[in-house]
């Protein structure tokens, strides 16, 4: 602690240089935070996917429909516990940029299938009792300031009503919370019976199924049994574990983890050069002063520690500020895409990695200059 003032004073020697270096480190860690949140947005769905859930879609594409009648046949397959269907609605709330998923489902089985969506008992009852009832996750409710009792109008882009209108209206009867931090609470669910009866076309057709199995160990076997069940029918299926299904979506963008690592490697390599150059300059400028420190009794290791401490402090100022800023932006501002990344937060694990990275940047940027300072011969250095 008694050396901190000395280290701080040295950092204040060239304020502009120190500020610019710290700022570049801040930007790097700001980027680190945002990329971590984006990665988790793509990844988290996979991580929180139910191990005991399969997703069954049309073999050709998810935009091809499956018959509603498949549910009973699926539930008869040995090892299947429950099957529920869902359909993509694709409506617009006020303007296209207000994106969020809207999905008609059967409330009872659906809530049984997804216990991670937590709804108050009275809200659950209200949903079961209200044909035009809908529930929405906390993120979307907060985003639009919705509260229970509101009437939510959606403009359909796919599903025209029987009366030729594209305007659908729903009564918001509940707002669900996520059981875990990574649970997606951006979606809007409404009743399939209302949807099926009011839509102009596609009656008896659904988008895909969620299937709960009794033994997750048998996921591959049961998925195959489902596909076999509907083989050679007009609507053949592709069943896969929920995690694999979500991963498939993420992979359409690319290998997020690889992209994440590539960008960060480039950024941190550049930052190491910037911070390392600053530290090398600061040692070169102070050869004489470092020799004085040694002359008055500082050991070689002591001088090494001072220079390394200065490097670590510089990295800490920039890095922790960057981490704090990114945490603030991510937590307060939330998903910057306005709904495309419903699970968007700065995970604690990545914050910890960020802290270790700060330390690494400090040590790596300072190691060569501090070794140079350590090796200084007093008599030679005093003559410079």
């Amino acid at each position, binding site marked *: 602690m008694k050396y901190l*003032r000395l280290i701080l004073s040295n950092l204040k020697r060239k304020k502009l240089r120190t500020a610019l270096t710290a700022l570049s480190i801040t930007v790097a860690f700001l980027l680190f935070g945002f990329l971590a949140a984006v990665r988790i947005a793509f990844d988290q769905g996979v991580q929180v996917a139910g191990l005991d859930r399969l997703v069954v879609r049309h073999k050709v594409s998810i935009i091809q429909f499956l018959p509603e009648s498949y549910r009973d046949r699926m539930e008869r397959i040995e090892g299947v516990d429950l099957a529920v269907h869902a359909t993509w609605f694709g409506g617009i709330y006020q303007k296209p940029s207000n994106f969020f998923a809207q999905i008609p489902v059967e409330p009872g089985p659906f809530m049984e299938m997804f216990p991670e969506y937590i709804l108050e008992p009275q809200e659950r009852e209200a949903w079961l009792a209200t044909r035009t009832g809908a529930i929405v996750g906390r993120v979307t409710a907060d985003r639009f300031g919705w509260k229970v009792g509101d009437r939510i109008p959606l403009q359909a882009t796919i599903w025209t009503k029987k009366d030729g209108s594209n305007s659908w209206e729903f009564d918001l009867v509940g707002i669900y919370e996520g059981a875990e931090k990574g649970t997606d609470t951006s979606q809007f669910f409404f009743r399939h019976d209302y949807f099926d009866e009011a839509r102009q076309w596609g009656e008896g057709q659904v988008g895909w199924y969620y299937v709960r199995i009794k033994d997750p160990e048998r996921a591959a076997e049961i998925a195959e049994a489902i596909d076999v069940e509907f083989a050679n029918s007009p609507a053949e299926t592709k069943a896969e574990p929920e995690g694999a299904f979500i991963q498939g979506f993420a992979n359409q963008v690319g290998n997020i983890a690889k992209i994440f690592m590539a960008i960060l490697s480039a950024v941190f390599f550049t930052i190491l050069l910037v911070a390392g150059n600053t530290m090398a300059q600061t040692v070169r400028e102070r050869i004489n002063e470092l020799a004085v420190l040694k002359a008055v*009794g500082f*050991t070689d290791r002591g001088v090494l520690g001072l220079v390394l401490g200065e490097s670590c402090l510089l990295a800490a100022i920039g890095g922790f500020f960057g981490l704090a800023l990114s945490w603030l932006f991510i937590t307060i501002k939330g998903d910057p895409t306005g709904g495309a990344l419903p699970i968007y937060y700065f995970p604690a694990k990545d914050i910890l990695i960020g802290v270790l990275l700060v330390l690494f940047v400090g040590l790596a940027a300072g190691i060569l200059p501090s070794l140079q300072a350590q090796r200084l011969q*007093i008599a030679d250095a005093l003559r410079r």
Partner: protein
Amino acid sequence: MSGSNGLLVDLKNVDKVFKRGAEEIHVLGGLDLEIPEGEFLALMGPSGSGKSTLLNLIGGLDRPSAGSVTVGGQRIDKLSDRKLASWRARHVGLVFQFYNLLPVLNASRNVELPLLLTHLSAKKRREHVDTVMSVVGLSHRMKHYPRQLSGGEQQRVGIARAIVTDPTLLLCDEPTGDLDRKSGDEVLELLQTLNREQDKTIVMVTHDPHAAARASRTVYLDKGQLSLEPVE
């Protein structure tokens, strides 16, 4: 701190050779020097005669190529780098020609530097700094940075830094070399006071006969050898 024979510094048959590529430069050759405790010794000689090199050897800032350097009964040329640093911190105060104050620290923080290596509390360190700043007559300049001080004041801060740990041996390398006559006289006066009233043993390298006259003994160095008379 002195040895059993009352000598504080005892150099025997000291050689110092610098290597510059393949070339060897013999700066000191077979040099003997004894300095009793409490002496104020002036070390004179032409440029390049090895005065500063000799001072560095006495202060443990450098090591001899051959021979022995004993200070306070201890062979400092045999100490490890770490022990030598610790020895310097406890026993030697250094005053430089160009003051060598840290520009980022104010006067009191500069003086406090050697005390950071001790186990003294912040309060005790402050007390020590206050005391030596008053000894050098700069109590009113504690918070001033080196750039805000005159050359004479900077050198007095340098002396305060050198004596703050209460070392036995004070090594001064041309302490008045960068000062005008008046400031130089003030610094020399201060060194004399430290020698007379606080029994500091002082070795001062100087080109200036006027400064050397303040010392109790003057030795001359030329071509790596000492003499009691200036070499023509």
